[in-house]
């Protein structure tokens, strides 16, 4: 549905987006993840036609956004980083205005606004001035704005920034609901958020996509060892001697723990599952094993690994 080829954006000498290629299929919910200033917002601004790329193209269903901007724009709903709201208007006036510039037929306008208000949960502030609303409500008014044109594609730039935890949960829930029948591209620098909402994550750093894939498997290729956290009731010396006797263990690292026990991180060859061997080794030495779990690379670790690695390479 969205096809991005060789997208590059230069601000003077600064390279904000560096020949990025990706495509998003219909119905996908994709998250852009990256530190501040990585190029997420710039990419989104180009996708929506607010900015033009220095090089490269954006196609929506094969139509270039530069060649038929109106046709493409009418299919995209965009919530920029700062919700584009007019403080001197009421929510009602604002949404009516948005409907008009998005060419919503007059007969449908009322229903469209009504359903938008319910979807984002702002019915109770319908007649209030936007300038007097709290940040959470403004963000939701912005989201309602993006929905007015009934777009097939939603592009949301940090939709949960500045909200309190309860609102964040609500907005996430909402995005998940919206993603059921729409293509959604959202950005965030909050990692759990992306892994929670999106089935696909693109990690962006310094204007480049450094990883792209399912949030649960994206770390797989990155770490060449499998890691197991072992907690046992015994001193470190004993634990070490038991573990080092197990074939396949390549590294043992003591971990800090709050329990009256020893916790170590055992590394082994990739794809070697040593859990059974570890259990048997401990039980034969009669050292109680109270914890044994495979350590998955969290998105945080993947993220740090990827973003710091790229920085070093430059």
């Amino acid at each position, binding site marked *: 549905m969205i096809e991005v080829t060789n997208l590059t954006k230069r601000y003077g000498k600064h390279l904000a987006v560096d020949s990025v290629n990706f495509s998003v299929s219909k119905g996908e919910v994709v998250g852009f993840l990256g530190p501040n200033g990585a190029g997420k917002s710039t990419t989104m*601004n180009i996708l929506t036609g607010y900015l033009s790329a220095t090089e490269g193209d954006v196609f929506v269903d094969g139509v270039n956004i530069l060649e038929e901007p109106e046709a493409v724009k009418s299919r995209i709903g965009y919530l920029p980083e700062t919700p584009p709201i007019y403080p001197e*208007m009421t929510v009602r006036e604002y949404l009516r*205005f948005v409907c008009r510039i998005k060419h919503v037929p007059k007969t449908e306008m009322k229903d469209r606004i009504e359903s938008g208000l319910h979807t984002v949960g702002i019915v109770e502030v319908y007649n209030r001035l936007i300038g007097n609303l709290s940040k959470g409500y403004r963000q939701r008014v912005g989201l309602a704005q993006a929905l007015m044109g009934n777009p097939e594609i939603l592009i949301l730039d940090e939709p949960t920034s500045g909200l309190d935890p309860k609102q964040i949960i609500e907005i996430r829930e909402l995005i998940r609901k919206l993603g059921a029948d729409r293509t959604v591209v959202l950005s965030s620098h909050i990692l759990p958020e992306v892994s929670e909402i999106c089935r696909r994550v693109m990690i962006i750093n310094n204007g480049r996509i450094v990883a792209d894939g399912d949030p649960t498997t994206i770390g797989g290729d990155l770490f060449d060892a499998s890691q197991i956290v072992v907690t046992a009731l015994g001193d470190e010396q004993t634990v070490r001697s038991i573990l080092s006797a197990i074939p396949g263990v390549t590294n043992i690292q003591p971990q800090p723990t709050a329990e009256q026990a020893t916790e170590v991180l055992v590394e082994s060859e990739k794809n070697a599952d040593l859990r059974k061997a570890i259990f048997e080794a401990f039980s034969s030495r009669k050292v109680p094993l109270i914890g044994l779990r495979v350590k998955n690379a969290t998105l945080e670790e993947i993220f740090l690994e990827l973003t710091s690695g790229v920085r070093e390479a430059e």
Partner: protein
Amino acid sequence: MFAIITRELRTYFQTPIGYVFMGLFLVISGFFFTIGNLFSGSSNYSSFLQSILFIYLLAVPLLTMRLLSEERRQRTDQLLLTSPITVAQIVLGKFFAAFGVFLVTLVVTIAYAVVVGIFGDLAVWQTVGGYIGFTFLGAAFISVGILVSTVSENQVASAFFTFFALLLIWFLNLIKTIVPTDPVASTVFAAVLVLGLAAFFFLNTRSWIVSGVVGVIGAIAIVVLHLVQPSVFDGLIPNVLDWFSLLERFQGFGLGLLKVEDIAFYVSFTAAFLFVTIRLIEKRRWS
């Protein structure tokens, strides 16, 4: 476009700006009318129109200062530019909204003319001409203000720059009388214009070739004109200034003379400024 017009009109009267503009315009024009016509018992309405020309300088910047600068500051330009409407529709919508408020205000002052008509001799056609002239002049001033508000994100800066730009246009008449008229000065002036044009192209395209070509063509044009029609260089500077002087053209209207040439001038002046505004906004996306 109509959505933009309605929104802008509403904003004028939901924020103080619309009231301040109308109030300022009507208070000062009322002041001139009371002193110039009522108290002095004069029915010379066209001199009243002449004197309120100057209120424009103060009032038009108020009308245009927030039109595009505020959109940028509030980031609502992201909504407008990502919606399925063109930049031209946005700019024209804003122009017509400002023009509408201006026209309504101007229409209110017709009451003064009616008072003069009832109690004195109103030069009807001169007054009609004056109002027509005002309408076009207003459009031209508003287009200048819109261009300025595109450049600045700050409303106050935008108002000040518009004020100075209009003041400069106002002073062109005076400047005209002191500039040199001899052919040498004119040639230098033409050369500076060509250089400026070349620099403009260079800043926009970053291409030495394009700007070089522009510069060379300009230089050739100057030389050819010198050989073919040297009379062009007699008083070139005042002629160019004259062309830009919006007020000079207004005099004809005040006398009740409707010249197609003058109307065409105002319309093309306005169109040119709006066009540059549209281009500026479109160009910003690329930089």
